[in-house]
């Protein structure tokens, strides 16, 4: 099955997020660990901050465009990953070991409809 892991949390101030000195990105060990269990990381990325978000609605007559995310909440979607694995237990494992979860973030696990 395919699952999307929606990484949620509070955005870090920009300089705190900018520790890119390491030899490899922070998700690389995670992807390797998943691979070792037969879980495939299909794709994924961090997202640009919420300040760059644009929300679009279409009421039939006109397109309504507004600045900001669709919901103003303390926690925001910070990134996503799509994984392919056997079942929810494997997806829960992947979420529990996600770099964001290890840093205190929250991951919402959602099955992707087409994969059922």
């Amino acid at each position: 099955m395919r699952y999307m892991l929606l990484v949620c949390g509070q955005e870090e101030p920009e300089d705190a997020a900018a520790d890119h000195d390491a030899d490899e990105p922070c998700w690389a060990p995670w992807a390797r660990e998943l691979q070792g269990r037969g879980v495939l990381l299909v794709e994924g990325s961090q997202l640009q901050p919420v300040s760059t978000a644009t929300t679009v609605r279409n009421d039939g007559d006109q397109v309504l465009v507004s600045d900001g995310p669709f919901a103003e909440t303390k926690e925001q979607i910070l990134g996503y990953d799509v994984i392919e694995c056997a079942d929810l237990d494997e997806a829960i494992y992947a979420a529990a070991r996600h770099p964001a979860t290890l840093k205190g973030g929250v991951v919402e696990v959602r099955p992707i409809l087409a994969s059922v």
Partner: protein
Amino acid sequence: MTDIEAAVAAAFRQEWGHVVATLIRMTGNWDLAEECAQDAFATALARWPADGVPDRPGAWLTTTARNRALDRLRRSRTEAVKLQEVAALSAPAEPRADDSGVRDDRLRLIFTCCHPALTLEARVALTLRTLAGLTTAEIARAFLVSEATMAKRLTRAKHKIRDAGIPYRVPPAHLLPERTSGVLAVLYLLFNEGYSASAGEQVRRGDLTAEAIRLARLLAALMPDEPEAVGLLALMLLHDARGAARLDDDGELVTLEDQDRSRWNAAEIAEGLGLLDGALRRGPAGPYRLQAAIAACHARAATPADTDWARIAVLYGELRRLVPSAVVELNRAVAIAMASGPAAGLALVDDLAARGVLPAYYLLPATRADLLRRLDRRDEAAASYREALSLVPTEPERRFLQRRLAEVGG
């Protein structure tokens, strides 16, 4: 009830979970599995009077349900899906061994029903429906919700299992301890809901306690290497043994101290003590064995004065280390009050109250009131009884507190 009806009813209690669990494995479809199991029992009612009760009713029912599923799939599905599912159903009925070497389909069913990705209410309802065979109406009555609400809850849970990919299996070794304690928690909650209802007119609902004991017995049999499962069964039996003595003829609550111990169920106590002795020899006790050991201290005491309260206080101390919980601390305070006098217990209760860790829990002010009553501090006792009365959930408990309040002149 005729002999045949009785035989079908007995087979239902014995085999329902098995038939449903097997059909879920074969079809992957929970609704179909339940419907075909129901059909199989209806067919038994129609055929057994003429044909006689088969030698192995369980095998007969499973085969009948499987054939019914085959018929329905042949009739209703598109060719491709049909061929795939019919092929799966026509395969030999023996399940493959899991990683953990467990083969009984009912164990898979328990673990799937109690999966942590389902709400606790859904886990309880699903366990009662699919494993114990209670009807949706019966479960709705037991939990004081409408049948429509309960039906919706069950449907939603089954859809989540299917759509979110909750596996139908006994968890692999690295997940087993955590998931097993989740299953034990669901069964214990079920028992407690029956033993001490969280709402309503009745304080005790025997149907739920009986189902919980039946399921705990099944789990203990299916997981012979899990002493905590045996501990849970022992705990339930030792509590249930006191059930009849816990209410008097008018339905009023009787405290442990005032219970007529000749009305305790001696057979349940003997079985519970025997199970516990065996389980305690198998490594350090977990929370269920500890709680059963506490219940055993009461069960062994011929009179209230014979109760080994010092030992109970020690056991609650151990339990508190495993399960840090204010309720456990409150119970420890009661044991210490009994072992060393009400003043020692009151100090601990007051400490709990000051920390505000049990808001709106009526047993905190009720316990405090009782200790103050024993210390003959009547005005303070009355105030605490009044506080407890404002929080008490069931009618018999309310009446008990009102009697005590009257005794201290409140």
